[in-house]
């Protein structure tokens, strides 16, 4: 019951054609369709029609983030709960975007548009009957699935409170600097985060991330990014926060991407980890290097 997972991110790109090429051949996602100025992608191990939507615009950034709920009828329940909490909720009709059913839409205290939905076409991953472990035609980095995103805004506490108290997200980690809640890492799946919220400019995106299975896959992703001259940001390295293995880089429009592997598997009763000014900037962000770069800390789209 409830929110299952991060289902989709819709992002703006400034060069549609170049972005489609990058997400197809460098990131290695499957282009499912192009319609009405949008391109729809899925990662190879996902069953749903898409997890990434690109739309052309004059600046990069996040259009909306969608979380998938277990049952269609839960949309009514969440709509009511959100309105009781004091959030205005709108409806998105079936078919407003390709392959999608209806959704409820609202704005988080940090300014991002979030949707909850259940219905979406399900072509499957093609590995359901006596399957091989992965498809034969993979190219590029080819992550199996979309993993999480990190959003920014002033009201970290507000967005965290809404996600935890109305949508029943659980906290894996929090950053408290000078007694102020600065970042939270929240999950519905048994991973370290499906969404994270950090103090910063309102309504912005820091990155969205795809999952990889091992350190070796992260290293190979780094090789592939270098070979294709993709703008690198940080890594391959380990985060102190979440223990995850990571590389950060930029898509052709300046949206930051991450490939992420590892971390731990928290349950709903996990006791959250806390980072403070004592160790967050040195061991929390990039565990090995002991410092973050200015670009990583200040660039949001």
């Amino acid at each position: 019951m409830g929110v299952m997972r991060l289902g989709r991110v819709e992002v703006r790109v400034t060069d549609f054609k170049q972005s489609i090429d990058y997400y197809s051949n460098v990131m290695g996602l499957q282009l499912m369709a192009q319609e009405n100025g949008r391109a729809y992608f899925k990662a190879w191990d996902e069953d749903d029609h898409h997890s990434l939507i690109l739309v052309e615009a004059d600046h990069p950034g996040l259009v909306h983030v969608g979380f998938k709920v277990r049952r269609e009828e839960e949309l009514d329940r969440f709509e009511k709960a959100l309105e009781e909490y004091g959030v205005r909720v709108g409806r998105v009709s079936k078919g407003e975007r390709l392959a999608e059913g209806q959704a409820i839409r609202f704005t988080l205290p940090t300014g991002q548009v979030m949707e909850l939905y259940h219905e979406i076409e399900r072509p499957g991953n093609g590995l359901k009957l006596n399957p091989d472990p992965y498809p034969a035609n993979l190219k590029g980095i080819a992550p199996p699935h979309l993993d999480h995103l990190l959003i920014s805004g002033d009201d970290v506490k507000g967005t965290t409170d809404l996600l935890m108290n109305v949508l029943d997200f659980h906290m894996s980690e929090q950053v408290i600097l000078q007694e102020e809640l600065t970042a939270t890492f929240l999950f519905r799946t048994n991973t370290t985060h499906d969404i994270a919220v950090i103090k910063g400019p309102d309504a912005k995106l820091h990155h969205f991330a795809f999952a990889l299975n091992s350190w070796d896959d992260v290293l190979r992703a780094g090789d592939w990014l270098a070979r294709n001259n993709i703008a690198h940001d940080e890594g391959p390295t380990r985060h102190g926060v979440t223990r995850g293995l990571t590389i950060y880089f930029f898509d052709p429009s300046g949206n930051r991407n991450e490939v992420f592997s590892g971390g731990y598997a928290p349950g709903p009763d996990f006791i959250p980890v806390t980072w403070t000014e004592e160790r967050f900037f040195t061991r929390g962000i990039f565990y090995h290097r002991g410092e973050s770069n200015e670009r990583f800390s200040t660039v949001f789209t």
Partner: protein
Amino acid sequence: MKPRYRVMVSDQQTEYTCRQDENLLSEALNQGIRAIKRGCLGGGCGFCKVRVESGRYELGKCSVKVLTPEEKERGYVLACRTKPLSDLMIRIEK
């Protein structure tokens, strides 16, 4: 071969050359010149914003959120999206 132009960084006493069909940032990086801050290299983040004090250039597509029309008027550019059409004098403003 396309012509090469001089790019002078006025506040850092640095100078390098840039081909007409290359952007100011990539060419600096290629030559190991670390005067300009590198961001996303996609005209999206504004990290490489500099001001052109003199010279002619061609500016490609930039995010309107990080380079406003007013800034363009005043000679601000994103180095990753700027190709020289003459010798240039640029200033890195912190």
